[in-house]
């Protein structure tokens, strides 16, 4: 494993632990909810599910982008753009969800569910945004043709890819726990 991929992997280990702890807080107050809005009364799992599909799809396009990049194919640029668009749609969905929750009076201080929900999904959204920035950077470099295929440059591409899959993977867990579980 290269230096940068190793560093990103270690970072991801740390981040995974961070999300695990936010999830534990969420689950704790899922078990002892107290008063105020809960997941079942506030969330729309169906619609968030659809937006989630965009995020999951972006992982696939990222993989295709990476494959094309390694094959030195110009299709990489297109797949990266697709990843950006799909990730962007997911983020848009989350912003919309937040705005609706806000409009219906579900803010971070309304209930223990709301606080843990917003910290958990908020930090995930932040990670998605950071990931999109990183992807935008390699997309631009690919677009203007300055991203070569040396080992170092391939590492940079690979590191972004690992990170993006991680962001995606975390959402699988969060979506299952926060959205699906609430309605079981």
């Amino acid at each position, binding site marked *: 494993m290269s230096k940068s991929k190793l*560093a990103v992997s270690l970072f991801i280990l*740390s981040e995974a632990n*961070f999300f695990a702890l*936010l999830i534990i807080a969420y689950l704790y*107050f899922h078990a*002892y909810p107290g008063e105020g809005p809960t997941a079942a009364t506030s969330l729309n799992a169906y619609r968030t599910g659809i937006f989630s599909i965009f995020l999951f799809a972006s992982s696939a396009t990222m993989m295709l982008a990476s494959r094309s990049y390694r094959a030195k194919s110009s299709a990489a640029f297109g797949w990266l753009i697709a990843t950006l668009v799909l990730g962007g749609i997911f983020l848009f969905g989350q912003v919309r969800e937040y705005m609706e929750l806000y409009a219906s009076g579900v803010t*971070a*201080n309304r209930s223990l569910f709301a*606080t843990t929900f917003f910290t958990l999904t908020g930090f995930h959204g932040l990670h998605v945004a950071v990931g999109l920035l990183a992807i935008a950077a390699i997309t631009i470099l690919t677009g203007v043709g300055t991203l070569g295929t040396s080992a170092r440059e391939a590492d940079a591409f690979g590191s972004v890819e690992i990170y993006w899959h991680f962001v995606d993977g975390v959402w699988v867990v969060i979506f299952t726990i926060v959205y699906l579980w609430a309605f079981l």
Partner: protein
Amino acid sequence: MSDIAASDRIAELEANPERIGFLSWVASVDHKQIGIMYMLSALFFFGLGGLEALIIRAQLAMPGNHIVTPDTFNQLFSMHGTTMIFLVVMPVLAGLTAYVIPLMVGARDVAFPRLNAFSFWVQLFGGVLLYFSFVAGGAPNAGWFSYAPLSEPAYSFNNGVTYWILGLAGVGVGSLAGAINMAVTILKLRVPGMTIRRLPLFCWMTLVNSFLMIFALPVINAALVLLLADRLLNAHIFTPAFGGSAILWQHYFWGFGHPEVYIMILPAFAIISEVIPVFAGKPIYGYEFVAGSTVAIAFMSFAVWAHHMFAVGLGHLFDLFFGISTMAIAVPTGIKIFNWTATLYQGRLRFTTAMKFAVAFIVMFTIGGLSGVSFAVVPLDWQLTDTYYLVAHLHYVLFGGAIFAIFAGIYYWFPKMSGRMLDERVGNWHFWITFIGFNLTFLVQHLLGMMGMPRRVFTYPDWPWWMTLNMISTIGAFVLLISVIVFLWNIVSSLNHGEIAGDNPWDAWTLEWATSSPPPVENFDLVPPVHGRRPLWDLKHPERADELVAAAAGK
């Protein structure tokens, strides 16, 4: 990405001597300069944290003192603990590792030099932010572990705890980046021949410690995020009055807090594991066991956190589990103590100041470790926790342990960093004054705790012996002040007039001693071959190289 850019930058600085000076430090991505800046920042905060301790001890010298108000007193001990842990011990160890690790593994810099600079500056920023609270309405006053709901806005009116959260987040991010950097440096940048089994123990323990930080720091970061939501967004995660849980904070905090103790002590073990063998003139006893026990400690440190919570009332079974797991962690710690002691035997012990601190470390840390075992015995914890017995215990671990080891490390590596020796005569004074002052301050505190004096009180009733013992402790604290002045004097005067060190003044064996003192920007002209754990020993005694001895023993 960054190391080529960094080397360009260094080359550029070299080519422009007018840029050498202040800017060469601020803009530096050189691990040696960053390491030194880390240590200087730690020294600065050590002064502040020490000053806070002195005010605390002055206030407690006699019952009924009015040197500070109760709230100021609370701010002082909260800041003292936070400062010493997050702005002194962690940064000074981060600085030592940043300086030494690349040299020890024969690399020209750390894996990510710019990230290294980022780590330093962001942790410094965190420290400055924390201290800014003093002029922004008041410092944190809920203790270094900010138990909820006392740390919630309903009970802590100033913004101190908010600054505490943000400051710690800064230190946490910096430390995490530093940990990743060190782990990658050790795993990826070792000179050929330095297999993982030939890694100096300092690197071994730093590697393990990096993993400990990678897993433990996100725990506090998550807790801080939730507490921040409570404080700034008016949420109630940790306020029971609104359905939150005060105990949840304790689980989160100590889930980080206990590994944190090992984050502070493993690098101290690492220093001791280098210093003792060199000055005993023989290899570390039981290398595999010292390294292996470190790994064991790292794993176990995540399963002992609730021994900080025996008084919470979580049930006997729960308490017993954590009591026994805590006792278990004493086993790998004991293995280390015995191996260091065994390293002394049949050696030829050169009692330099570094060695004096290292040997004193063994005994002082043993006291701290044993009093730690008494906290693992659940019923004893029920009496002794949150008393001065605990204050004594933690200072024997973190001062008699970590700080003694750090002094050993500074006396050991100062010649490498500065090119000059620290004065041994002044060093001898420094050691003895520290040793006496430290024991004077903290030994009596065991007894005060057993007499029922709780920690974090700004005064106490005038009962028989209470004043005498507190006065002894206060006198000890001022003796420690003298020791620090002697130490600073030694540094300043040695920097100007110290004996020239030469490449390898201690006759040591690891690679950092193969280059000049201080090392050139690129560290090495030529890295010596590595065929064993002690490359410079092998060079000096080719007929008795470690690998030959080992091969002969294997026959």
